[in-house]
Structure formats: C-alpha cells, structure tokens
C-alpha cells in the first residue's frame, strides 16, 4: 500500500489486509463479517481470519479479552487472510498491544482515542499512552474519538449509554467503508433485517455507520482513500461462505442427491457448533438435528439413525473425537454409513478451543482400539468444505463405512467467495436398500466395493441381528473363530483401501518434477499455494501437492513424491502427515511445524523453501 500522499484522490490497490480488534464485547466479529459481505459483493477475492477468545465476555480492557477479525481482499487471487495487516483498527489499548505485531511497518492504525483511558491503559500494561508517546511513529496513526463521535451522532435519540456504546463499532465500520470506497447499503439493509423488532436500534446503528463514513469524507486527517478493483474471478454467480456453512450445505446436498434423510447427532463444541446451528435451520429438507446429552450419544444416535436408513452424521472437535472413539469402532464393525466431522482446534485436552490446529490427523486415522480403518478426507478451503462434506456422504453410503471429515477452526470460521456450483453437476449418489430375502446374508459383500447390504428395519423377511462382536464372514453371526477374525480384519481394511480406485488422482500445482515438492493437507492450502507461487515467480524449482484424501491416499502419491529431490511437509502440528508419508512411501520428508493456534503465514513457508533450495 502506498503511503504519505496528501492527496485524497482514489488510489488503486491490488490487495489490502485489515484487522479489526477490540474487546470481545465490542462487536468486532460482526464488523468484520459486514466488511466481508460488502467486499464480496464488490467482486473482490478475499479470505478472512476471525480470531477470538474462548471467553464469551472476558473482562473489558484485558489482553486476553481481545477479539480480532482479519480480512485480506484484492483484485488478484487471494489465498490467505494475509501474513500482516495494512490497517489495524484498535478499539482499546489491549487490542493495540495484542495486534500491533501483525501490522506491517508503515501500516495504518485507527485507534479509538476514548478507549485509551487510564484504566484501559493500565489493564493493557501500558505505562504511557502509546497514542501520545511517539512509540507508534513508524506507523500512520489516526487517533479518533470514536466513542465521543458516536455519542454525538446519537444525541437526539435519547438512548441509554449502554446502547450508544454498543453502536461504536459501526462508526469504525463506516470509516473503513469510506477509506476503502465500499457502499454502506448492504450493511444498512442487513441492520434493518437483523434488528427489525427494535426500530430504535436500526436508527442508531444506521446513523452511526453514516457518521463514521461522513467523518472520513469531511475531516482532513486521512491522507488517502483507496480503491480495490474487482478480482478477475471465474465468471458466474458467487456468494460468500464460511467453512461451517459450506459443511452443513454439503451434507444437505448429500441428502438431496441420495434421497435419504439427514440425521445429525451432535453435542455443542467449539468450533463445530455452527454446523449444528446451520443444519437446525433447514427443517424443510427433513433434516433431523438431535442435540444429544453428550458426545457419545451424538455419535451413537447417528449410528442408530443410520441403521434405520438415514445418513447419520455427528459433528465435533478434538475432545469430542476422543470420546467418540469406541462408537467409531462400532460403526466400523457394523459397516454402516456415517459421517464424522472433526473441526480441529488447539489441544490437547481443552487446549485452545477457539484457535486452529491440524493435530487430530493421527487421531482420525488411527485413534481407535484395534484395527479400525476409517476413510479420512480433509477440506482445503472454507468453500471446499461443501464438496468435501458431500464426498464424505458419497463414500460413506457407497462403501457402507464411517468416514471422517476433517476441517479446522480456521476453515470453519473463515470466509471466501464461492462460485455457486450447478446442482446438476454434483456426482451421483444412489444408495440401495436390500429388500429381497432370497439369498440375503447381512455380511455378504458386493464384489466391487466390498460393502455389505444395507437392510433396514421395516423390510419384511430380512430380520437380522448385528452388533459389535466379531462377525462371521457372510452370515454376520457372532464368531470367535481365529481365522475368521483375521479374515474380517483384513476384509475391513481391504474395503477402505479399495476406495483409492474410486477417487480422482492427485495433481501437482506447478511442475511434475523438480527440486522440491511442498506437500500439505487441509486448511494450509492457501498459505502453501501463495508461498509456492511466490517462489516459482522467483524461478525456484518448487511445486505444490495438497492432499484432500488422507486415508486411503490417492494411487499416484508415491509416483509424485519420487519425482522430486526434496519433500517439505508444512503442518500445524508436530509432524503427522509427514509420519504417514514416511511410513508409506519411505521418503525423507522435511517438516515445517507450527503449533501456535494460528494458521501459517506464507512467508514462514517461503523462508523454509529458501532454506532448502
């Protein structure tokens, strides 16, 4: 971003990163989401990173109570929420202190001067007011009396102080709309819809938004105003979507395409709960959402529903995955279709509930007693959650198996523009129920998929008993026979392995061979893609392979890996995919690990690439 121009003419920018930061009660997530929707409507490409504390209303002014929302948008392809931000909106000293390190040198700070009172300064650990002591000289600092200006704007309305204070985020949003030439109308429309039961709040928020916009326009303090032209996205109809929304819709799409009802058994847990919320809205799709008494009831109720012929789904995060382990094994044994969504967060134990991590990979692949193979697939961007969740449904139904769908806190809450797919282009899912009693055996397998027949209660003549005890091949009767057990263990593995025949081959972004292949999985896609593209522009021989299918791996992974001199695996854990790749393909994978509850910055990956090449 250019700086230091005194001219208020519009300046064109290719990309900008803004971070809104304030108390967790300041409405920063809402402000960020509004800026995001408006920006999406303007046709920019974008990526967001909500970053909020686990406490719902942490004590005001404290460092741990700071809530942030970062948006990176541009007229170019945007793959990450931005390594560092160009603009930091700080509603109080704590927000400034926590977020300053993410602001680039020369970046803009918009601080709410009224929030920088003695009490808040002390809470944030500032001895002197940073707005006045010159410590922020390397940035473009604009200290604005946001609270006071909000009060002024609402003087006539006679609202309580509390209500007035609550509107101040709209002042900040108005300023940003002016600064980045965004229209206010979409937000005004949203305010009218959201607060339709309280007209005084509609009036207040709209007034304050406009006041913020007018403040930018009329005062002389801002050096420049910017424009970010629409991105050259593929033509078509777009919407903005978060990972959790996309997951819920992908599951619904699976239900519509298969002609089976969706049953969700779930216990609320961050950051997965929004999938439960979203699915609960869509009752006209006959979605049944069951808020269970615990994680175990969440999955076992879904297994019960699947036994009855529904698409059973359970959604959770790491701690819930741990609790569901035994029931996953049951689903493996019963060979019933089930989708288990793990929206990963920082761990172990309660860990960092609102932060992202990729450390459940080995838990997903191996975390059950005995040999209990389950296909594992991972979405790679927020919008990709749609197709990945849909794929999880497809595989579960076709192979009569539980499938683990991995997402993470970053994908779940992050948003991006999504080219709305043509419903007709979605792959077919055509499950069948066994109805013919002639020659029916519960564990007589389909020769191609090795899946067993789905015979649901209510079907005359197919009364049969299944359970967690080892099954005799074909009849499904309880069997303790040693040879049969080994046979069935291998059969269950073979069935999962066979899925490799049914999934597309992996493809490399960049050259098919070279000095370095960066292999990622899941939510690190954007950061790795950006890093690899930057290095390729510099002429480095580096390519990118991003895995969506972890178990089983796609058939050509080995072939791809062997075409490169080096393999680098960046992961938000201590090296889990790298273990799987080393074990299966015997490649000396180099690891790049980060476990801070935050996504990779592309620069971190770029530095590692430089180190290797």
């Amino acid at each position: 971003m250019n700086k230091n121009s005194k001219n208020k003419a519009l300046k064109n920018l290719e990309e900008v990163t803004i971070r809104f930061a304030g108390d967790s009660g300041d409405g920063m997530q809402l402000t960020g989401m509004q800026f995001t929707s408006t920006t999406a409507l303007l046709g920019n490409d974008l990526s967001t990173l909500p970053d909020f504390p686990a406490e719902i209303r942490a004590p005001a002014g404290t460092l741990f109570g700071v809530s942030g929302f970062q948006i990176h948008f541009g007229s170019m392809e945007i793959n990450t929420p931005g390594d560092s931000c160009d603009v930091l909106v700080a509603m109080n000293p704590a927000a400034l202190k926590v977020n300053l390190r993410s602001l680039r040198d020369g970046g803009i700070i918009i601080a709410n001067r009224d929030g920088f009172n003695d009490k808040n300064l002390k809470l944030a650990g500032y001895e002197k007011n940073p707005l006045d002591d010159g410590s922020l000289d390397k940035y473009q600092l604009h200290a604005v009396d946001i609270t006071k200006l909000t009060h002024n704007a609402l003087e006539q309305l006679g609202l309580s102080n509390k209500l007035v204070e609550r509107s101040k985020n709209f002042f900040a949003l108005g300023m940003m709309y002016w600064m980045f030439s965004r229209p206010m109308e979409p937000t005004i429309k949203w305010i009218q819809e959201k607060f339709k039961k309280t007209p005084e709040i509609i009036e207040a928020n709209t007034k304050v938004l406009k006041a913020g916009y007018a403040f930018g326009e009329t005062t002389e303090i801002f050096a420049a105003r910017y424009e970010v032209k629409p991105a050259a996205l593929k033509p078509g109809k777009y919407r903005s979507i978060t990972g959790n929304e996309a997951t819920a819709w992908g599951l619904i799409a699976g239900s519509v395409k298969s002609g089976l009802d969706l049953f969700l058994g779930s216990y609320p847990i961050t950051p997965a709960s929004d999938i439960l919320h979203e699915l609960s809205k869509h009752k006209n799709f006959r979605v049944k959402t069951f808020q269970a008494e615990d994680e175990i009831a969440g999955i076992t109720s879904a297994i019960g529903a699947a036994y009855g012929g529904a698409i059973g789904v359970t959604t959770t995060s790491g701690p819930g995955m741990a609790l569901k382990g035994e029931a996953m094994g049951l689903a493996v044994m019963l060979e019933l279709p089930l989708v288990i969504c793990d929206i990963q967060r920082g761990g172990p134990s309660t860990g960092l509930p609102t932060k992202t991590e990729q450390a459940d990979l080995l838990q997903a692949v191996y975390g059950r007693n005995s040999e209990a193979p389950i296909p594992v697939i991972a979405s790679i961007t927020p919008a990709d959650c749609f197709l990945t969740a849909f794929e999880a449904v497809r595989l579960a139904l076709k192979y009569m198996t539980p499938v683990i769908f991995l997402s993470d806190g970053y994908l779940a809450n992050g948003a991006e523009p999504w080219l709305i797919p043509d419903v007709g282009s979605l792959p077919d899912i055509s499950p069948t129920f066994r109805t013919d009693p002639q020659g029916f055996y519960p564990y007589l397998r389909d020769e191609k998929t090795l899946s067993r027949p789905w015979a649901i209660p209510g079907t005359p003549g197919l009364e049969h008993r299944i359970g967690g005890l080892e099954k005799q091949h074909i009849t499904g009767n309880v069997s303790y026979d040693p040879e049969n057990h080994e046979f069935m263990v291998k059969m269950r593995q073979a069935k999962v392995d066979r899925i490799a025949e049914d999934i597309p081959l992996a493809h490399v972004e960049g050259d098919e061979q070279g000095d370095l292949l960066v292999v990622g999985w899941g939510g690190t896609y954007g950061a790795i893609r950006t890093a690899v593209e930057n290095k390729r522009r510099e002429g480095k021989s580096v390519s990118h392979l991003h895995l969506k299918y972890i178990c089983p791996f796609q058939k050509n992974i080995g072939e791809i890996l062997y075409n490169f001199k080096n393999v680098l695996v960046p992961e938000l854990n201590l090296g889990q995919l790298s273990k799987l790749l080393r074990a299966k393909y015997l490649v000396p994978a180099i690891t790049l690990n980060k476990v801070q509850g935050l996504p990779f910055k592309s620069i971190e990956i770029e530095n590692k690439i430089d180190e290797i090449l």
Partner: protein
Amino acid sequence: MSEHTNLVEEIIKDTKKNPTQKYTAKDFQSDQDVRWCPGCGDYSILAQVQRVMPELDIPKHNMVFVSGIGCSSRFPYYMDTYGFHGIHGRAPAIASGLKIARPDLTIWVATGDGDGLSIGGNHLIHICRRNIDVKILLFNNQIYGLTKGQYSPTSEFGKVTKSTPYGSVDHPFNPLLVALGAEASFVSRTLDRDPKHMQSVIRRAAEHKGTSFVEIYQNCNVFNDGAFFTFTEKETKDDNVLFVEHGKPMIFGKEKDKGIKLEGFTPTVVSLKDGKYSPSDLIVHNETDTMLSFILARMSNIADLPRPVGVIYAVNRPLYEAEMSKQIQKAIEKQGEGNLEKLLNHGETWEIH
C-alpha cells in the same frame, strides 16, 4: 431436485401392504443358541417377551431390539426381529437416534443395572426426560455378571464381591427413583419368577406411548443367587411384595390382611384383621399421581415395608420424535420442500461476468 423421493418411505409404504401375520411365541425365537447360564433369570424374561409380542399385532419386521453390553444385552440375538447389539451403556442413545429417524418402528431396549445405570446412566436419564417412544427393560440382578461378579450400582451397601472384599462402600441406586427423577412417563417393576405379572407389565409397557421403563428383578444364580428371593419365593413373597393396581387399595399379605396407609407423607403398614382399619383407610393406587409415585418408589428403601411391584407411574406427555416431525411438517408447509438450488442461491449473491 424439488420432488421428494425418499427411499426409506418407499420401504415403509411397501411394508404397509403386507397384512399383519398372526404370530405365536415361537415366531419370535431366532435361530441362535441361547447362551445364558442355566437357571438364569434372563430365560424367563426372554420367554415372557416372546409370549407377549404376538399379542401386539405389530409385524415383527417393524420391531427392533437394541442393547448395550452385559448378560442382558445378548437379548437381541435371541429375538427373531431386527436386533442391534451396541456398545456398553449406549443402547438408549442408539435407540433414540433410530426412533427419531424412524418413528414407524417399535423399539425395545434390553439393558442391565450396570449397562443402564452405571456406564450408560446418562443416556438412560435423558431418554426418559425426552420421552422418546422406546421401551426399556432393565434387568436388575444387583451384580456384574459378564465381568464375573463385581458389585453393581444397585448392589446393597456392604456387598462383598471380588472387587470389594471388605464390602462395598457405595450407596445403591433405586432404579425406579432414577426413572421418576428423570421424568419418565411410564415407570414399573416386575419379577423374573412371576411370569404372569411380567407379561402384564410388558404388555402395559408396549401399549404406553412414550419412554417405558420396566425394572425386572432378575436372579443371577451364579454371582448373586437369591438376591430377590424374599420377593420372588412362595414362602415370603406375599408378605413382602405389594402388587399395585390402578384404582385399587394397597393390600398385601398371604391372607390379604395388610394394607398401606399414609401417615402424613409416610407410608405405614396397617393390619386389616382387628377391625381397626378397613380397605377404605388405605392408599388407593393412582398411576397418574406424581407424588404418590415417588412415595411408592421410596418404599423400596424402607425396611419393614413391602416392595411395590407393578405399574408405579403412567402418564401421557408429548413425544420427542412426534414434536420433531411436527416441526418438520410445519417448515415444509411454510417454506415448501427443501430445494438445494434455492438454498445455495439464497441471500446475498453477485455475478462476475
């Protein structure tokens, strides 16, 4: 994509065409060998259930028996219906999911004092609270049988077992109070050695709309032989068991000469022999009386009072799965059958040319 084709509904429709067969108890016997210990009380429970099922006029392919883990949980293998042998303690949750997905099915849960009240206690109370139409048979033998003889959550204080050689220091659960406390709409108790009574209670449980809870005193002749003999054996039964019947005064005893009278909130035994008290002084059982149900259930913990057996409590209240189906129907009436295209395109969208 807008027209709704549902594969499960097609199967249900097909099923309805089949006229209901007339069954006998034998039709409900599966081809599996029954593997409980000889003399186990479970045999009687299996026999009574198989005897009552034909009376219900429900096609057996619409019945599902769900269980957890333990001796009692082998039950589904022996019923020639659909059967689901789950994992320890989770049968009520499995059954909940199945019933919500398939309200057309008749679902029974077979569980035990360990499976239902220890590892699965959470699911048991929540299915009762939600009032999902599932019938729960809790085989209470006051011991862990399948793991070979540890004390259970219903074992008496001081119980000497393999895991409590100095006597257990756990206070036991009263299963009826657990079910009542969890707001179950049907709470009952019966005895493995009283086939007629068990059949009548099972019949009532089957007819009830909502979660039916049936505690069955069941003898484990290997690890806890005789735990309930006071209540089940001829010599002592009549003087120690109070068979409650709706609308009837609470009379018991070999000579039908004793009754239960309320002194304040305290039930006391009175004699009908000396003319001081007549049946009109006694409590008249009322299955719909919540307060009375707690008093009756509490009697199990008080020495010198007979053990109440029968239908303790039975009321009607909304069914979880029916309420959910109503919400779905309403949503469809209001918004129309879900349309994927519409869903993906609703709200704010924009075109890139």
